[in-house]
């Protein structure tokens, strides 16, 4: 039963929920007031208190009636005590408090039947200042005598009245807060999911909150799926094209061995084929790094960096390695090797030299790849990480590649919960810093 009720509330939209809250608050307000009026109407004072009020009123009214209207304010003032204040109003218009005390009136009138004729009215004072019970009566010349008195037993009613005013407001605030939170809470997870859109597999947001929010989340989840699917299709297409191009390229390369070809022609075509092969490989590398399905392995990334540096040095490049001999991380070996290799090759290509430093600190390993080249213009550093952006586009396209080198590094490093930071060195040249979490020792 309760569950079904909750399920029903969950399906409600925002306007319906708002209406429900207002209705509930109105209901509570009504109930509190009804309760208050009921208890005020049946409120009784102790016998002697009621008798005191009756006597005081009768005596005061007789005294006031006897003097001339001009003297009446003074007389009422003289008759007032700290527990029983009187006030005379010339006109017959009088204020009747909203919370009447019918039973108390009966009690008082029972003691002094004379008061019936003077239309005695008793009510609960809103603001407990001069007293908590107020009242008024008509005098013979239809002027009004007002009075306020203290009755200890009436404080409960006063408190009840205050509560009946404050409680619905408090309830309204509380419910409005709960409503807003329930409505906007799911919005946060939507925002979180939006931030990670497009990187990695879709992260479905659980459907929560009011109806409109559920529809939004449902639509967004569907959109995530669609985008993911189209990215996957695009990836597949690129891989297929790359793969299919390899066969004709291989055939072309074999045909180059034909003796009838002039040597310089052969050389040129061989270079072109190499360039095409590199383009295809870089696309495949970029697309492949998206594959989270590849299992991770324990890798000695320090040895990996040394090996890459040594290989370059053996080919005559100005490459050095400094730092720890061993640093084991948990990562995808092919991807990380390609990432480091891209950084080293970039440094050699643009800077002419490369220095690799490796440092272990705490739970991470920091690999710094530096060169003494021209660096990257500050404002283009962010662009360098964008796929298919080539910073040297202004210059002749003398270098093979599609502007995928650094994006491949970034994707590979991020996939292992690492970070890459690219900045110009103060002394000139570029410094790429890769941080990877160290693997716990097994």
């Amino acid at each position, binding site marked *: 039963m309760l569950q079904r009720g909750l399920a029903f509330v969950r399906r409600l939209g925002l306007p319906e929920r708002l209406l429900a809250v207002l209705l509930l608050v109105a209901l509570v307000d009504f109930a509190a007031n009804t309760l208050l009026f009921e208890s005020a109407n049946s409120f009784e004072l102790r016998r002697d208190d009621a008798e005191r009020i009756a006597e005081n009123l009768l005596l005061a009214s007789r005294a006031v009636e006897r003097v001339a209207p001009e003297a009446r304010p003074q007389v009422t003032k003289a008759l007032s005590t700290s527990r029983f204040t009187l006030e005379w109003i010339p006109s017959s218009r009088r204020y009747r408090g909203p919370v009447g005390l019918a039973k108390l009136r009966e009690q008082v009138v029972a003691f002094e039947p004379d008061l019936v004729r003077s239309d005695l009215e008793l009510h609960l004072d809103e603001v407990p200042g001069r007293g908590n019970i107020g009242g008024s009566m008509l005098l013979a010349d239809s002027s009004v005598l007002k009075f306020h008195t203290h009755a200890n037993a009436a404080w409960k009613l006063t408190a009840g009245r205050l509560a009946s005013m404050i409680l619905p407001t408090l309830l309204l605030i509380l419910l409005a807060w709960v409503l807003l939170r329930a409505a906007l809470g799911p919005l946060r997870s939507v925002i979180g999911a939006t931030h990670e859109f497009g990187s990695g597999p879709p992260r479905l947001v659980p459907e929560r909150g009011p109806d409109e929010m559920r529809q939004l989340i449902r639509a967004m989840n569907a959109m995530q799926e669609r985008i993911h699917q189209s990215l996957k299709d695009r990836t597949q297409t690129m891989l297929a094209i790359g793969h299919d191009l*390899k*066969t004709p*390229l*291989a*055939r*072309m*390369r*074999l045909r*180059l*061995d034909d003796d009838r070809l002039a040597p310089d022609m052969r050389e040129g075509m*061989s270079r072109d*084929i190499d360039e095409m*092969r590199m383009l295809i490989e870089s696309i495949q590398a970029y697309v492949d790094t998206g594959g989270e399905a590849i299992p991770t*392995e*324990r*890798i*000695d990334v320090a*040895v*990996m960096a*040394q*090996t*890459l540096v*040594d*290989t370059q040095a*053996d080919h005559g490049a100005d490459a050095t390695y400094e730092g*720890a*001999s*061993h640093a*084991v991380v948990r990562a995808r*070996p092919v991807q990380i*090797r390609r990432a480091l290799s891209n950084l080293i090759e970039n440094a050699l290509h643009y800077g002419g030299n490369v220095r690799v430093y490796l440092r272990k600190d705490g739970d991470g390993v920091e690999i710094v790849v530096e060169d003494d080249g021209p660096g990257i213009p500050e404002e283009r550093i962010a662009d360098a990480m964008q796929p298919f952006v080539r910073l040297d586009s202004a210059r002749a396209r003398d270098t093979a590649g599609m502007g995928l080198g650094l994006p491949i590094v970034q994707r590979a490093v991020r996939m292992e919960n690492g970070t890459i930071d690219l900045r110009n060195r103060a002394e000139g040249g570029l410094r790429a810093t890769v941080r990877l979490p160290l*693997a716990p*020792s*097994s």
Partner: protein
Amino acid sequence: MAFELGADDYLAKPFSTRELAARVSAVLRRGNTVGESVADFGGDTRSADTISFDGWQLSQARRELRSPDGAIVDLTGAEFDLLSTFLGYPQRVLGRERLMELSRSRIGDSSDRSIDVLVSRLRRKLQAEGGESPIVTVRGVGYMFRAEVTRL
């Protein structure tokens, strides 16, 4: 995949005929060397895939070295061939010239000095922090692989 099907080596498309020819002759040379070294070792001509020493594992087929805690340790082609040679002659002193001869498939035109460089690189890779390297220098003669080698 190719290795699992029993291949000794493979080339991805597109390849040049020159590279293909070089690879084929390298495999042939390697085949001879391994046969020779295995014969030396115990007359067993079955080529063992995994060789282990001091907790390290060298997979011949995948050309992959793993440290005692299971981490992949990258080796250059020349380093791999040098290590394979050492593993074929454990606890034997090998002179520089003999080493060069046995590992020539990769090292090719190495000089004495480059053998020393290769050995020191290999040593650094095989040495745990604060530990000892399994390759020891025998002054004036050459090097010796002192760890016990088992073929799985």
